């Protein structure tokens, strides 16, 4: 779905710099950011943290039938990445020939996610690359 300009603008810090949150009470890290810690609820104390972008592949798939806005990218690898701080994220894995496995180390890279029509907005965010690739 085409994302609105205010929504994209609002999410810039999280999507550009992997800015998430962590609960000081239980230590659990969350990405995307949360206002309350679901485990500690009112006893929780949320602070902002910047994720390193290093992690491992927890599960992966190759998308052959893409949603609107991703037609030119398909087929592409999509994965659940476990970040080294503990939180997991959904993201594409790019610049790889398909040798992705569960457990493969990866690192976040800054990329174009979607592009509206030629005159429209460019939506940026994170994708991942295999950490061993140069």
């Amino acid at each position, binding site marked *: *779905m085409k*994302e609105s300009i205010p*929504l994209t603008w609002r*999410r810039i810090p999280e999507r550009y710099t992997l800015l998430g949150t962590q609960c000081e009470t239980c230590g659990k890290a969350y990405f*995307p950011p949360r206002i309350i810690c679901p485990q500690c609820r009112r006893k929780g104390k949320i602070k902002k943290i910047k994720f390193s972008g290093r992690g491992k592949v*927890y*599960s*992966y*798939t*190759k*998308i*052959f*039938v*893409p*949603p*609107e806005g*991703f037609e030119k*990218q398909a087929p*592409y690898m*999509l*994965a*659940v990445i476990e970040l080294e701080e503990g939180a*997991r*994220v*959904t*993201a*594409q894995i790019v610049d790889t020939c398909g040798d992705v496995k*569960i457990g493969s180390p990866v690192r976040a890279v800054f990329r174009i*996610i*979607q592009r509206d029509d030629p005159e429209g907005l460019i*939506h940026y*965010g994170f994708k991942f690359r295999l950490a061993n690739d140069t």
Partner: protein
Amino acid sequence: MTRFGENWEKGFRDMVTEAGINAINDAGISGEEINAGFVGSMASGTLIGQEHIGALLADYMGLNPTPITRVEGACASGSLALRQGFMAVASGLYDIVVVGGVEKMTDLGTTEVSTILGGAGDQEWELFLGATFPGLYALMARRHMYEFNTTEEMLAAVAVKNHKNGAKNKYAQYQNEITMDTVLNSKMVADPLKIMDCSPITDGAAAVILAPSEMAGSFKKEPVNIVASTQASDTLALHSRETLTGLKSAQIASAIAYKQAGIAPKDIDVAEVHDCFTIAEIMAIEDLGFFKKGEGGKASLEGRTSLEGEIPINTSGGLKSCGHPVGATGVKQIAEIVWQLRGEAGKRQVKNAETGLTHNVGGSGATTVIHILQKQR
């Protein structure tokens, strides 16, 4: 219910009215006794541009000024509507309640529909980044294969079995049997899920009538008791869950349901489960306690969930073969179990079925609704 399928000649209001009238006729009531209604629809606003469907339904079913309320919980909208109706009758507020589920999906193209269905997941943190629903279930399938050696043949066995059942159901979208080769050689959608691992895009509606047990005996048809109605929530995004190989919402909702009904998984004679993708049925039969975690794939391949097996699953054909008009699916599951418990399921009848279960999932598992139905003794 209506036949599920590509109902080009029928609109949203035609289908919901047809299903409602069929349910009223089946119960043998006139319609004037109806005190209230609940209707489940996931995305009528984006699929056909129509909101306010409670009012539409009351109007077109000739039920004005009876209050009818729409309920939404993605693909679990239908059984959520049933649960609202159940609670309204159980509380004593109303006696006779009509519950419907409906979706009109084929007026749009596949890409548009898939994008709309994506709204059942996390729009900002899954769909925006390139996820699709087949993609999310593929992530679960890959992990299930990694942890339990589940194979593509095991996934395919679910589709083959459900088509075999759907071929015996006159309401099903696809009434044809398929072979394992057909599934394994079908087009890849999201590796390892192929097009024949996926439920289709469907139009359809289903409806049921609820009444207090002591009153239901006076109706035309043999009533069926709802002995458990439960619902559980989990994180909206798949990646936020502890595990990807099962749905915690389904495990919790079913555990509470068994307790409510005072029975165990082994007491279930027939079940309708949410096989939006083949892996979903494998996880469901594990989450519901019919098989141990990790053994659902093997059980499916061995035919233990077939019509002749120890626990027949998706006798209607499931979402795969009967079709998946998202808002209608949960109510269709109830209708199928009612027919099974009354002995009206024809060629797909499970012998001596006395207790049945429905398992209806919203999104990738953020909502699960469970109902257990029992023959009145």
